């Protein structure tokens, strides 16, 4: 039986490769926040309060593009709705914890931490302190995200605009979905929602960010019906 501290360290070690991408992503995010015209405090506050890289960029982009707060908040909700699935999968392993511990550990559920800790849970389902793995991966991701956002906020101002840092946004999202590119149904759904977003981009209040994922999910439902 491993100790709490040992499992915590394994969590940090398992998520370490992902820090290489989270760190520059945080710098890019901090720089983009400033580039879009937000104050350092406002930009940083999203990292502390929302703590969801992709959704933070969309949130600031939509607000700076003139979208209503409702649209921006809804978009954050849609993008972060994947956490419902993460929570559903993790609940099996976290059910033994007290409510206070569940409330605390939930703040640290992010993509990379979920991915590596869920693998550990599957391999060690009966380990008493296995939730320390999620704490280890989540807390190191949290720390690197906070630090890199602050670095980006202050380094971003010395990055020349000709570098076109904004293009890093779609690139970062491409990097997130590369694992799904080998699944034909996912590629089909990506094309449907991506083309829908392009088509509805000029719709009022940036509603494309809500409309096109819903169209994509509808396409996913049809594809799953046809597969049966």
């Amino acid at each position: 039986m491993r100790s709490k501290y040992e499992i915590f360290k394994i969590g940090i070690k398992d998520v370490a490769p992902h820090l290489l991408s989270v760190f520059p992503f945080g710098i890019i995010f901090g720089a983009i926040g400033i580039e879009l015209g937000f104050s350092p405090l406002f930009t940083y506050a999203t990292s502390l309060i929302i703590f969801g890289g992709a959704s933070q960029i969309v949130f600031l982009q939509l607000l700076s593009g003139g979208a209503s707060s409702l649209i921006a908040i809804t978009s954050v909700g849609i993008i972060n709705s994947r956490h419902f699935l993460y929570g559903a999968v993790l609940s099996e392993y976290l059910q033994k914890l007290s409510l206070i511990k569940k409330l605390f550990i939930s703040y640290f559920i992010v993509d990379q931490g979920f991915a590596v800790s869920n693998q550990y849970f599957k391999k060690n389902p009966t380990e008493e302190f296995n939730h320390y793995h999620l704490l280890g991966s989540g807390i190191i991701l949290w720390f690197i995200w906070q630090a890199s956002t602050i670095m980006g906020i202050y380094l971003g101002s010395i990055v020349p605009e000709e570098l076109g840092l904004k293009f890093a946004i779609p690139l970062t999202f491409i990097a997130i979905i590369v694992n799904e590119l080998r699944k034909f149904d996912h590629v089909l759904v990506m094309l449907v929602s991506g083309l829908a977003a392009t088509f509805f981009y000029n719709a009022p209040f940036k509603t494309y960010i809500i409309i096109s994922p819903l169209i994509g999910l509808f396409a996913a439902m049809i594809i799953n019906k046809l597969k049966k």
Partner: protein
Amino acid sequence: MTWTSIFIAGILTYFTRVSMVTLIRKEMISYNLRKILNYVPSVVFPSIIFPGVLLDDVGAFVTISDPKIFGAITALVIGFFTRNVILTIVSGLSSYWIVIFVF
């Protein structure tokens, strides 16, 4: 007010994280719903990628020779074969810069 919206977005995001862990047991989610939710990243991220690559700042189509198109295709190809986050971003960004600064 935008500060209020940060807090609402933060509470909403925290709710997406905490709700399933505290309230719902794994058995309560239907098989079909789980399958559809699995597509959420595949529908949300392309909704940001496509306009970000294909459209310019005012929402008009870019030309086929735009550096963004070249950068995105490079990132997709590298990402497909390596499945490496860093290589995907670095290859996309560097090919984008090569088109801008060299050609």
